[in-house]
């Protein structure tokens, strides 16, 4: 069975402070990991995927297979980063079912 755990329901940080949203996963095969974001009154959208190894809006995430983690990080939080963030997992290659975590609400305090 595949499982994604996001331990924090809410994370509050001050503007300019570093951000780390935690994500741990359980999967027996080779996983693909994603971060999705949902801004207020907008639809769910892909933020980044680990295979792309890119930085989007200053966010990065590194897949750590040893710790089975895929934490999302940003060095300096901005007010516009306030949103719901969901970590998601699927098996590598072709179609595989996507499993989402329960989400973390990031609140950036001005």
């Amino acid at each position, binding site marked *: 069975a595949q499982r*994604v755990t996001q331990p924090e329901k809410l994370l509050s940080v001050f503007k300019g402070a570093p951000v780390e949203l935690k994500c741990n996963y359980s999967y027996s095969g080779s996983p693909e990991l994603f971060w999705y974001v949902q801004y207020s009154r907008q*639809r769910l959208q892909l933020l980044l*995927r680990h295979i792309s190894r890119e930085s989007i809006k200053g966010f990065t995430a590194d897949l750590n297979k040893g710790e089975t983690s895929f934490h999302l990080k940003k060095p300096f939080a901005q007010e516009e980063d306030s949103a719901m963030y969901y970590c998601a997992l699927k098996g590598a290659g072709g*179609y595989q079912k996507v499993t*989402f975590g*329960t989400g973390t609400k990031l609140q950036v305090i001005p």
Partner: protein
Amino acid sequence: GAGVSQTPSNKVTEKGKYVELRCDPISGHTALYWYRQSLGQGPEFLIYFQGTGAADDSGLPNDRFFAVRPEGSVSTLKIQRTERGDSAVYLCASSLSPSETQYFGPGTRLLVL
């Protein structure tokens, strides 16, 4: 271009009634997915279509739930004999192929009274 659209945006029904939720995917996207998101939870997979066929329906909770995609484009999620526990936001997503990025619709918020 237009993104994934879903209708209605909100649906209120009474326990025991039948409802249909519609999804219009992005043109050309062969893969279509339905998810259910309950309050405080992440999206939960329901069913995946590749073209006209349901390639994976393992997420459908019981036989009251059914989905079709007869022409490989628009999809309808059908719920029979609705129960209060069916209240949730139903999300649709589409992708160019199963390995490509999924694009989500705005969701249909279903409330069963």
